[in-house]
């Protein structure tokens, strides 16, 4: 039987960047016990000899020529920005690796 603990859910929520209340962590963990049981059925028939299909179409080598096409204007690019400054997107301080 597959299940996810409250801590498992918390770790997944961290990876997925979603803040979750304690109540939400617990209830999702309960729901996942049921859902994972249902979806784990795929393992019953997924033998080693079956090729995975990641895409419904058998397409290959779809490319575009290296040609510049007009970009958005900076006004359009920034039109949805929650905050901006000097034609740049303004975002809260970034904690983490220095790029």
């Amino acid at each position, binding site marked *: 039987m597959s299940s996810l603990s409250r801590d498992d859910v918390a770790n997944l929520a961290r*990876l997925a960047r979603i803040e979750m209340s304690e109540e939400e962590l617990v209830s999702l963990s309960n729901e996942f016990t049921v859902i994972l049981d249902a979806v784990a059925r795929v393992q019953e028939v997924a033998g080693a000899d079956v090729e995975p299909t990641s895409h419904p179409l058998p397409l290959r080598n779809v490319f575009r020529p290296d040609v510049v096409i007009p970009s958005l204007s900076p006004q359009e690019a920034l039109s949805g*920005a929650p905050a901006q400054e000097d034609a740049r997107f303004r975002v809260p301080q970034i904690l983490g690796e220095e790029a």
Partner: protein
Amino acid sequence: MIHLSAAQMAAKLATGETTSVALTQAHLDRINSVDSGVHAFLYVDTDGALAQAAAVDAKREQGQDLSPLAGIPLALKDVMTQKGIPTTAGSKILEGWRPPYDSTVVSKLKANDIVILGKTNMDEFAMGSSTENSAYGPTHNPWDLTRIPGGSGGGSSAALAAFEAPLAIGTDTGGSIRQPAAVTGTVGVKPTYGGVSRFGLIAFSSSLDQAGPCARTVLDAALLHEAIAGHDPKDSTSINAPVPQVVAAAKSGDVKGMKIGVVKELNGDGYQSGVRTRFEESLELLAAAGAEIVEVSAPNFEYALAAYYLIAPSECSSNLARFDAMRYGLRVGDVDGASAESVMNLTREVGFGREVKRRIILGTYALSSGYYDAYYGSAQKVRTLITQDFNNAFEKCDVMVSPTCPTTAFKIGEKSNDPIAMYLNDIATIPVNMAGIGGMSLPAGLAPEDGLPVGFQIMSPAMQDQRMYLVGAALEAALLSKWGAPLLSKAPELAGK
């Protein structure tokens, strides 16, 4: 006038009996009158629609060559970007966002002079089967306002059934065009994957998503299908081949000698008795029209739902990562000293609804290291098996058929706390998406026990979309002569304002 089919409206426009402005205004009036009860629309672009209609009328007056649907109004699912028009995908996280670009579908609608009335309601990011997951409140089924109109494209199907628009655009990842069509007594088509461009379609599950036409008749769906289909260099997964001749097929409806395969596994237990009755009756009508009914088996379809609920959440967990409060959309918690990370976390907590979060977490899990092979990898293998089932079956028949969904429309709120029960709604529609083939739902009548519409599903091999239109047109014609009037004429009159 609003009760006509799009093809009939087009004929009246062509003869000058009416104008696009008059037609558009009539639909705007209807929306104004009934939509407070139905809630099919999230945004109505009154000025834009009337301006577009006036422009088509002017072109017509100048004698310009116009497309078959020029001047006909349409309702656009809010998952398609339209430049300058609010586009939310039914989510709070995109509230107020106005895209700076048109989706390819919208560009094609505009090029065909089809008048866009506004944006229709949907389950948030197309995740759901009832439209109850919209952040902006549920849409109501015009047949019974206490019931769901299907989902995710419940706004589009309800708009058609309520005569707020004769045409609509839907998108179908696991049945989001076909199931709403089934429960509202309308026609919905999911073309072959790659038949209609996904550029500008806000992605839920990239390898499954497909936009398609919604209408009240098979011919209307075909006309809209040809207007929006075709190769698009902006979508690498778009098919570079001629569009199947679906309008000709819808006009012909000749099924003599065609083999129609009834899928053994998509019937029987779990299917409501009235659904089965109407399905059997439809088979008889098709046989009477000259088709040969055969039984086909698809043993791996029973794993389709499980595979779907791994693949779609996995892809969505990645597709929805871009909603992070940095470049557009909602931003929550941007107080002094807050970090980008905490703002992302808080915004995604507040901006996403419960079902979306559930699927993102599930997908994050299915892709995580150590679990990938067991979940996502196995689901991809099931996908191969389902495609093989279709290939085997299509050796024995030209199209496959089944009921579109196991039941008629359920009550709003009835299944909202039981995700698995909700997911079971899509059991018959999902295999089509897994294999990337074409699927159509059209009305097969009302279930005797509840008087609600039942949908009949037709599945055609990839790139053979015209076959489902042939069969759909034949069944539609047979049912129409049996009923004497379109099914929707039996729908209750909606209280106007």
